[in-house]
């Protein structure tokens, strides 16, 4: 089988995550879609690391996992703070800073 299979799979997962971030209004689901996109990027990194026989791609994927962990922690803390103030998890209701 070809390595392109994994690249196409990653492209589709990234697109699904991208549509999810744009379409859904629930902040927690939006964060999950961001995780989906980061995972698609990881799959691309690892597929290219396999093709090029270089482990640098795997190191990059490890750092992406680190950043995803930070993003989830801070994002969910923001969701909790927003819920305490406004009793909502809807992105459209958090419009104080919107122009």
């Amino acid at each position, binding site marked *: *089988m070809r390595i392109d299979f994994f690249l196409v799979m990653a492209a589709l997962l990234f697109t699904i995550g991208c*549509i999810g971030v744009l379409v859904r209004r629930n902040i927690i689901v939006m964060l999950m879609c961001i995780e989906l996109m980061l995972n698609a990027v990881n799959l691309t990194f690892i597929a290219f690391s396999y093709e090029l026989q270089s482990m640098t791609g795997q190191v990059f994927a490890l750092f992406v996992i680190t950043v995803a962990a930070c993003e989830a922690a801070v994002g969910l803390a923001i969701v909790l703070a927003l819920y305490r103030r406004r009793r909502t998890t809807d992105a459209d209701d958090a419009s104080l800073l919107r122009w």
Partner: protein
Amino acid sequence: MHLLTGLVIVVMAAALVRAVAPGRPILTAIAGGIAAAALLVAFHQDLAGTDFWAGIIGFLAILSALFVVIHPNPMVSVLSLILNLICLALFYLLLQAQTLAILQVIVYAGAIMVLFVFVIMLLNLRAEEGLRIGRGVQRVGAILGGAGFATLLIIALRHRQGHAWMEPGRHAAEFGTASSLGGLLFGQYVFATEAASVLLIAAMVGAVLLAKRRLD
């Protein structure tokens, strides 16, 4: 033959999505369309010789990713995301990244997803009525943008140089093991590792600060 199998799977997928999310024809159509595109691409001659089990895992990954997006209940979304992450861990195993596959299951499907489940339980979120999604321009723009983006990515993949086949045994024995990954992390990329530790500390402090009752 492959095309026929793909079409059967598409019909089954559409029925499944329809059963889980009734009364949302637009989303079902989007889901079915993306699944159809995925399978037509996956079974195209460009990707000939795809392993059967890899195809099944890929189909599961796409389907669970769609459930994350289209399901109104956040808990089902989290569980689908865990399934998706495990499918990706199996892909990592196929691609000789054993350490990262284990880390994916432990860190991602374990730790990070537990955080999501915890927050959803804490906020006691119910399924949304009628799936709050962006309306009008936003929805159309998202669908058009997503379709355009997918087309762009697939065209880019079509025209890339060097279509490599997977050849088992081409890689060194230590490729993807924990010791070689650790050697790179603490050798060539030691500065990035330290920067990542600073990032983790900063995120932890930020999360603690945000979780305080009074934000001042």
